């Protein structure tokens, strides 16, 4: 099976995982869900690292790669930290 087809298999099966996992998320946490998926989609940082870190990378590609690393890294740090900040606010009743 050619690699692209394998990738397609993985993609479609992952869609099903996404479908079932996301329907389980409680509506009260939909904002943290958006923030967390945002952080997770910062996974493009892996692609950015691969472009930038190539040994024989050209000057132009290196610059594109640098900005990609920068933006994805903002996403990763900003996304996870803000999710954490929000989730720490969700408390159960503890008065009295």
């Amino acid at each position, binding site marked *: 099976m050619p690699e*692209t087809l394998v*990738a397609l298999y*993985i*993609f*479609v099966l*992952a869609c099903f995982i*996404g479908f079932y*996992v*996301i*329907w389980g*998320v*409680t*509506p*009260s946490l*939909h*904002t*943290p*869900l*958006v*923030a967390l*998926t*945002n*952080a*997770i*989609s910062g996974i493009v*940082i*892996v*692609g*950015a*690292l*691969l*472009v*930038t*870190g190539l040994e*024989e990378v050209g000057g132009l*590609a*290196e610059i594109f*790669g*640098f*900005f*990609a*690393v*920068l*933006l*994805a890294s903002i*996403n*990763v*740090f*900003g*996304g*996870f*930290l*803000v999710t*954490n*900040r*929000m*989730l720490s*606010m969700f408390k*159960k*009743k503890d008065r009295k």
Partner: protein
Amino acid sequence: MELSANGQAIAYLISAILFIFALKGLTHPASARNGNYFGMAGMAIAVVATLMGTEVQSYGFIIAGVAAGAVIGSIMAARVEMTAMPQLVAALHSFVGMAAVLVAIGTFLNKQAANELNAVLMGELSAGIIIGAITFSGSVIAFGKLQGLISGAPVIFKGQHAVNALLALVTIGFGVHFAMTGSINSLVIMTVLAFILGFTLIIPIGGADMPVIISMLNSYSGWAAAATGFTLQNNLLIIVGAIVGFSGAILSYIMCKAMNRSIINVVFGGFGSESAGESSAAAQAVQKGVKSASIEDAIYWMEDANKVIIIPGYGMAVAQAQHALKEFMELLEDRGVEVKFAIHPVAGRMPGHMNVLLAEADIAYDHVLEMDEINPEFPTADVALVVGANDVTNPAARTDSSSPIYGMPILDVDKARNIYVIKRSMNPGYSGVDNLLYYEDNCSLIFGDAKDVCEGLVTALKGGGH
């Protein structure tokens, strides 16, 4: 130390599993924080495994980029106001989109230098660039609308859909041409057109539909990551992209369902326009046969009630009334009144926004109920207090088949014994529809800023203890 390709693949697999557990954690607020830590661990493993792999050999730019991103991201996350969360999310979506575009172009340049280009790869690159660019410029527009930099009103012109369809076709056409020939001109034109397309796709959508736009762009950012995964033949990116893409798609579906509108209608609709100025609220109210009440009237019914349900809307967030509401809730509880909050799925500017704002004010999440949970309780409520919510309480959605919001699921506020609505003026909500709730016999309006009125309620309750 270098990690073999197989070692790296295993690390990516572990990372993907951790991400799934991270999302699974959001099933309940009690497990959510741990879920987020799973997510962080997954990301750390993915990044370290990539850096230790054989492909990454030069580190200077990488360290600089990650360090700068860490500082900027941490500051943004620490400083953002909870009311501004939709803007932050829109900004972050735009970054993912732009990063995907940059990675695709960088990959093209690297592969071109190594003479490893082929039609399939270039086709995948085109897809990555188009999706990423649309995500970027669409998110920038969403950010501008949320931040008030550009009007939230839908921008509509004649033949808009035809123009968009044509633009999309031409963009794809250049993408195909690039994939077939490797022409750099086509690549550049395609990229520019895709940026324009993101702009023209989002600009016609009105501010009232922000929860849908945010969810949609969330979805796009996932598809952009997945497309990047295809170009790099990186399974982790494909898995994560697909899950995030579906997450946003499901949220869009839930939001549309809560407004009883199809996604097509939202995307092409241009629903809701900014309402005009506020002429003397009380005078309009009298004219329309609406009762206005004082804070004391409302307190009279609430102080000895059994159950009070509070319905917060975006008006509460704008006025920053949530802290006063929390104090009011505690005072009522001290008097033995049961207090609950009722949340409509599209309350606020993004999915779940109201829950975060209430959580920020230290209101325990077991007091906050979703529409389906709370609706059976309205008939047993002595008082329903509406704070800055409008369309989601309009009984016209149930009764008036000619109303634009007919069929939309609403909070059954009208079934409570007494209803008090805190409102600044008689202006209709985003839908532009008059709220029939206000004309009910058991409904009175308290005119004023949500925060001022809530603070007034607190003072009155403290002072009038008997």
